[in-house]
């Protein structure tokens, strides 16, 4: 930690005006083993890394987590406001800036409330107590005689002092102890309330809300020219013609990386078109036959790992059931193509980026550009929703490569729609094989195998450079090796271990090492596919056992919170055991506890089918959610409902199309998503557990939604579809 912290200070000094006081916690400097601190405090141990009290009575709060449209900065401001006893309007948030904020890695995996929220809760409580101690000293009274409201500390005799007046004295440049207890939930006034999001007013009025909206003085516009297929080599192009186009200030070629910079955006786009026409490419990799993609993946080298192995005697006469499920490659498909700004001045590179992790991006950018991390500052600005590792990081490297050719002028680069679809890392295609034995209505044996590529090819890899353009440079960099992630969170095997009570089980995760299509983290990682498979299979088993799907699940659950969400969803939907589908309508249920350690979700969906066209519609969904203590009920509802609607899109429509020559999904025509006409209405039941830990919810509803839709299709038709998506051709084939 030493070098980056020092350089961060140097960097700030160079910027002028910003006073920074990061430093090592004293014990760390002495090499002693520090005590574990909760949440992200553990890796960022100084109180003033998290918050400062300003002389105007406000507080500045620093977080390494970033806004992705999930409302995290509002939720974190609520937590800081609550613990500091400061009005929400007095909390200023600074997020994701390698020059200013703590390093909290990636904003991913629905962990921000748990990691950053916990740190801010503890730091806020401790800072408040330090301020009270200062006031007590000033008044010469005991600290426990003082009360605090809206940043004003009041004594019994009526004397008052505001946080702002203490700002000069308060020393938060000290290691957190985490010894000051945060407020008990019963005393919460701001946490737990549906506070309006801070970012929404600008977003609905044309305010500067996104990285796409940043305009720097003297800014130029850049575009990149990508190869026609993975790995193709640039043999040549008409540089003179491109340079002669109006407004073009630079054409940048480094190996097979090709980009252009112009005074105006439309000029950069025209120059890109011209370069695309004149560029000559050779070689590149052929893609597998899409009709045999799953067989192909299973034929590749893999690492196998048994992730759960429970032994028990297998009773005689059990009935076996087996089924195999598939999920295709899926795109993040952000509405706004990825964008970044870069500027090189005095040997320092500044990047404005909608990355999910400014620190990992900086580390990888340093390797890609062969420059020290200390000379790079990455500043987060919001982008269009990313839903995982999309092209946000890649475009940042593109911008940096172009900014080296502009003599200090900043460059704004936005990918075109086809760049985004063809070059983003997809959510991997996966195969899930489930087997079980039933006896007397109980599951007595369980086998499950999941095959997947890596779901984590993000920047920040210790061994490789996971940034697209770096692989095409004259001196190309290599991506990191494919990586699995340990259970219980897992990656491809996320949610591969069900919460059900299984006396005997063997669950194996297979990491397919070769990646024929570029892949990385898409929202939920493998959980979407594993929950789709397991919860489809649970319905298949319930049918075999002639049991009601809700009752069958509850029978196999011990966790009372799991049972409670199933009961609540069934009640909200007025679920009737034994209710039959009609051939054109039916309902289905599914359940999961995300990552087996986060939010519980149970969902019932209604499905309508047009048998002639094969089109499925999901008019309604009923969902029950337990995410422990609720920080912001409206934000939680928005995340859960959004997950259901997005998953309905994934489940009914989405798959990346390709053939041997390359990626065919290049626009919204070739990668259709759910429209307004098709969005299910959602009834949400929140089960608040104020005394439990708050749990991440942004990825909790997608898996259950997919399975509930598949189960509703079976309820409607008696047919089972085990391969996603449930698009019209596949539906018609199932009905034929």
């Amino acid at each position, binding site marked *: 930690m030493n070098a980056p912290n020092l350089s961060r200070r140097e960097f700030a000094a160079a910027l002028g005006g910003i006073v920074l006081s990061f430093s090592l916690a004293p014990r760390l400097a002495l090499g002693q083993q520090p005590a574990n601190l909760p949440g992200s405090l553990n890796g960022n141990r100084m109180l003033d890394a998290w918050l400062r009290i300003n002389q105007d009575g406000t507080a500045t709060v620093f977080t390494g987590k970033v806004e992705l*449209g999930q*409302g995290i900065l509002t939720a974190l401001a609520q937590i800081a406001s609550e613990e500091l006893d400061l009005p929400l309007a007095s909390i200023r948030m600074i997020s994701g800036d390698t020059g200013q904020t703590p390093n909290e890695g990636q904003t991913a995996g629905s962990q921000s409330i748990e990691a950053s929220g916990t740190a801010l809760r503890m730091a806020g409580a401790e800072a408040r107590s330090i301020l009270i101690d200062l006031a007590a000293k000033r008044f010469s009274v005991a600290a426990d005689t003082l009360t605090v409201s809206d940043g004003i500390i009041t004594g019994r005799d009526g004397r008052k002092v505001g946080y702002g007046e203490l700002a000069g004295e308060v020393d938060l440049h000290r290691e957190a102890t985490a010894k000051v207890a945060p407020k008990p939930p019963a005393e919460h006034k701001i946490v737990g309330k549906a506070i309006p999001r801070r970012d929404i007013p600008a977003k609905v009025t044309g305010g500067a809300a996104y990285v796409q909206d940043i305009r720097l003085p003297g800014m130029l516009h850049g575009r990149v020219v990508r190869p026609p297929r993975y790995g193709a080599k640039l043999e040549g192009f008409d540089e003179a013609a491109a340079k002669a186009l109006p407004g073009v200030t630079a054409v940048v070629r480094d190996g097979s990386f090709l980009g252009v910079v112009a005074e105006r955006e439309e000029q950069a786009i025209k120059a890109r078109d011209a370069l695309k026409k004149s560029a000559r490419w050779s070689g590149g990799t052929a893609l597998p036959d899409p009709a045999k993609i799953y067989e192909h993946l299973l034929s590749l080298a893999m690492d196998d790992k048994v992730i759960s192995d429970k032994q028990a005697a297998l009773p005689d006469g059990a009935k076996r059931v087996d089924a195999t499920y598939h999920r295709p490659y899926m795109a993040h498909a952000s509405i706004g193509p990825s964008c970044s700004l870069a500027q090189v001045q005095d040997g320092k590179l500044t990047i404005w980026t909608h990355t999910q992790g400014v620190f990992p991006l900086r580390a990888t950018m340093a390797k890609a550009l062969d420059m020290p991390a200390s000379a790079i500052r990455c500043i987060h600005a919001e982008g269009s929703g990313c839903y995982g590792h999309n092209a946000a990081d890649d475009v940042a490297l593109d911008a940096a490569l172009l900014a080296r050719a502009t003599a200090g002028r900043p460059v704004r680069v936005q990918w075109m729609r086809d760049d985004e679809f063809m070059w983003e890392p997809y959510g991997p295609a996966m195969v899930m094989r489930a087997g079980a034995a039933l006896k007397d209505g109980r599951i007595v044996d369980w086998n499950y195998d999941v095959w997947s590529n890596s779901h984590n090819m993000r920047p920040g890899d210790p061994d490789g450079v996971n940034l697209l353009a770096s692989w095409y440079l004259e001196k190309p960099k290599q991506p990191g090796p494919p990586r699995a992630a340990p259970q219980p969170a897992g990656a491809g095997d996320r949610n591969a271990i069900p919460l059900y009570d299984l006396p005997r089980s063997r669950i194996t995760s297979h990491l397919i090492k070769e990646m024929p299509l570029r892949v990385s983290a898409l929202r939920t990682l493998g959980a979407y596919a594993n929950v789709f498979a397991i919860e489809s299979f649970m319905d298949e088993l319930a049918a075999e056992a002639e049991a009601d799907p809700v009752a069958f699940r509850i029978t196999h659950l011990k966790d009372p919170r799991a049972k409670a969400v199933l009961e609540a969803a069934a009640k909200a939907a007025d679920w009737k055991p034994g209710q039959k589908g009609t051939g054109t309508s039916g309902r289905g249920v599914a359940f999961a506890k995300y990552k087996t350690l986060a939010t519980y979700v149970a969902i019932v969906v209604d499905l309508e089918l047009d048998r002639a066209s094969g089109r499925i519609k999901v008019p309604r969904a009923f969902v029950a959610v337990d995410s422990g203590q609720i920080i912001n009920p409206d934000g939680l509802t928005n995340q859960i409902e959004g997950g259901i609607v997005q998953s309905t899109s994934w489940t009914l429509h989405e798959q990346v199309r390709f053939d041997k020559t390359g990626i065919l999904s290049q626009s919204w025509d070739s990668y259709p998503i759910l429209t307004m006409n098709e969005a299910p209405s959602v009834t949400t039941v929140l089960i608040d557990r104020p005394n439990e830990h708050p749990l991440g919810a942004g990825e909790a509803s997608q898996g259950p939604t997919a399975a509930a839709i598949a189960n509703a299709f079976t309820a409607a038709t008696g047919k089972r579809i085990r391969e996603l998506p449930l698009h019209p051709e596949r539906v018609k084939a199932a009905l034929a």
Partner: protein
Amino acid sequence: MAISLKVNGVVHSVTAEPDTPLLYVLRNDLALNGAKFGCGLEQCGACTVLLDGIPARSCVRAIQDIGQQEITTIEGLGTVDKPHPLQKAFMDEQAAQCGYCINGMIMTAKELLDRIPHPTEADVRATLAPNLCRCGTHNRIIRAVLRAAQANGKT
């Protein structure tokens, strides 16, 4: 060459090639953030503006073809302090996640409410169907438009 455009009631003279899509002029010359680049193919609607009150995809409309038509962007509807009923309804319903599509939703809904002050939910869904949302905020967007329609009746 200079082309004259009337945007949100003000006439601007813009120096750009005549075939320049309106979107880039709005964003880069006039510093209006509302209309967004989404696809450049008139498929997603993030760039929607009104031309004489009718929704248009500014990513494919060349400035030479605008002529005397009055251009309205989301900035022309209202501000954070004085929002248009649609903008207020989107705030009240918290109808955004990432919010990148919301410009197009509001501008498309504006024309709907001008034409049909009290639309049904089906009207709203059908009108907004060509505008893509990726975060799954569909239901809140529909509720916001219906809420704005109710506010219409009260003013």
